């Protein structure tokens, strides 16, 4: 495993998905535009909602980003736990009616495990939870190299 810095992780993520035909979309402002129901941009997909609901068509149907996010529903908990933050950065990749399961699962496995272009995580360390009804995903993960014992069926995992 490589001791990558935050900057190297961002670059590696974007480069990987660019090599798979994705457009790198810059982070949108944390203050949402034209959505009064939302206090902050709180997920990678928030700035791309207009594409997901069909109100706009993206120039490229494959997109990737590093998005600034703020979640302030649980401020009092920050500092108590190892992983909760008010501000964080979310890495993402998106397909608007383009690729689906058959592409994204092999890519995810490659990005996580590949030493050269990915993060080089040993596959023995990886676990996947999946919805028990989603047999197609289960088979695909195993086909690309996941250890079958590390596939965990979880009800409510939609």
């Amino acid at each position, binding site marked *: *495993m*490589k*001791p*990558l*810095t*935050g*900057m190297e*992780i*961002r670059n590696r993520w974007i480069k990987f998905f660019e090599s798979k035909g994705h457009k790198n979309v810059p*982070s949108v*402002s*944390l*203050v949402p535009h034209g959505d009064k129901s939302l*206090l*902050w941009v709180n*997920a*990678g*997909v928030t700035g*791309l909602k207009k594409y*997901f609901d069909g109100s*706009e*068509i993206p120039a490229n149907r494959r997109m990737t980003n*590093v998005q*600034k996010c*703020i979640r*302030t529903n649980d*401020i009092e908990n*920050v*500092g108590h736990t*190892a*992983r909760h*933050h*008010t*501000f*964080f*950065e*979310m*890495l*993402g*990749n*998106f*397909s*608007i*009616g383009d690729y*689906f*399961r058959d592409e*994204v*699962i092999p890519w*995810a496995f490659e990005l*996580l495990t590949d030493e050269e272009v990915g*993060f080089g995580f040993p596959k*023995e*360390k*990886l*676990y*996947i*939870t999946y919805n028990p*009804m989603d047999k197609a995903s289960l088979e695909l993960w195993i086909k690309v190299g996941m250890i079958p014992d590390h596939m*965990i069926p*979880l009800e409510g995992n939609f």
Partner: protein
Amino acid sequence: MFFDRGEKYDPEHRGVEMLKNDEENDRYIEIWNIVFSQFNAVNGVKREDYKELPSKNIDTGAGLERFACICQETPTNFETDLFMPIIEAVMKLSCKEYAEPNLMSFRVIADHIRCLTFALSDGAIFSNEGRGYVLRRIARRAMRYGQKLGINGPFLWNLVDIVVEKYAEWYPNLLEKKELVKKMILGEENKFSQTLMVGEKKLKKIVEEKGMISSEDAFLLYDTYGFPKDLTSEMGLELGAKVDLDNFDSLMEEQRRRAKEARGQIDSFKKQSKDLMAFKEKSEFRYDLEESDTKTLGLFKDGVRVSSLDEEGEVIFEETPFYAEMGGQVSDKGFVYGEGFEGEIVSVSRAPNGQHLHEIVMKYGTIKEGDMVSIVLDKRRRHLIERNHSATHLLHSALGNILGEHVDQRGSFVNEEYLRFDYSAPKKMSEEDLLALEKEVNAKIEEGIEEITEVLPIEEAKKKGAEMEFAEKYGDTVRVVEFGDYSKEFCGGTHVKNTSEIGLFLVKSDEAISSGVRRIEAITSVGAYDYLNNRLMLLDENEKRLGANDADLSRHIKGLLNDKEALRKENDQLKAKIAALEAKEMEKNVDSVNGIAFIKEIKEGASRDDLLTLADTLKANRKDYVLVLLGGKEGARPLVAMVGGEALKKTKAGDIVKEMAKRLGGGGGGRPEMATGQVKSSNGFVEAVESLKENF
């Protein structure tokens, strides 16, 4: 997707069971989530019955901080290079180690200063509601943890440097906003110190007098002095008082409700405010400027005159380039700068004596009466508004030319996004007229007509034949805005210098809004370009799907429609053939009794109408017949009976249906030739029909 950080983070050796039980734990860290949107989830529909979406989407998310924690093999996210430089800066400031019992304080500060720096750089500001209030809480929480580390005085603002240094390479806008953000945070820290000093005194007094702190006391401290609830509770306990804050939240809720009601009344307060009515100093609105170095004449808070402002309020300047909302044109927005303060101008209205009243929100510092300030318009927004406003004038003239008569304006609205024009018209314009209208306005844009504004006595203006919306609205002198000979209107709004600046004009809709009144909505320049561009992309997308290009798209679609029509015809013919075959098949079941044809049939699933159609086919070319058909399924079966020719002498269709209904359970009736009904079951149907034959 989860990453296993090993036994080290699993002291009870519970292993993968924690994952299976979906428990929050430190060993298996969720690093990435992939969402497949394949089905259309509908409430009340079982998951396995969801319909597939026409276009399947993928949306994934992975936390950078978690990836860093795993790659750098740190105990928590906070020891990664995303937080550690900030924590080190806090160590220097506090002269304390990043270790227990202070871990939490370091983590809170490092987290919160990142949040504040990014949020303020993106345009958020501290305030008492919504987003600004959340930021205020975050800043105050960080300050409190600074105190726990023994840091005295403002310190957060100094941490902005390290955050910007660490993050500007990826987020360059941080660098631009750094100095502003530092000032905003310093201002907030000073304000909180003030709050703490005053609040602490009050709190001590309450404890001395009563020996306890109630919800009402805590709420008073919060509401009047901005003293936080958790601090009240903590300090109260330190002073040895009993603290009971059970009721605090409901008092808070009640306060929110009152505040919400009050907000609705602020506008009417302003108009009736005594202070504003008494304020008579002159303030000049300058059409020719986009920024101005001027002086503050009067400051107000919800209509009450004050000497200084450090949050929200209203200001009147000696001179202003800011347009106040009037005549359908929205007010300007922009900024106010001065020595030691900066604020946003969010809207502008008119005070009772006509001065422009600027609603401001301070970013940092305090603005005082008599201060020298620079006020600057959001120029891009102003120019977009001007393009829409001038386009409205061109539209007004073009409408008159196209409709061949004077057009009564019934209202208009322009902002930076679009324009709206209401006019009286007896009927809808044809598509050709609408297109001609759009063309005419665009031709005037292309001509590049200079704008001329004259200020004239009203009588003289009327002689010039300028258009006006409502005559009584204008004073002794009026502004007349002219675009050559093409358009002349009384207008107090702001306009482009030359029609060519409008660029492009597009009508989006023309709709009736009440009897005899129609509304046109249109867009110009950048907005029109974006709109067209979006439609072009839609076109490209569908051409790609059809393998067509602009030249042959119509041919492709015509081909598809022709194919569809041909298939429909073919389908009809096949259906007719099948029906004929079925009828022929049934001929086999036709019995003849004394020259009368008896036809009976059970058609599973057939509706009443299906049965009637079938009956028509079966009785064609027959003269003397009895026909009984049953459809549907067990429980509800439509029934049709028809009788013709000689058979009518012996029985009637209505009687047959009644007889069947009695035997098979149900009801119905009709004329002698034709009757319909509904029965429950087909049990005994054949026997019932057989028994009919006995009469013949």
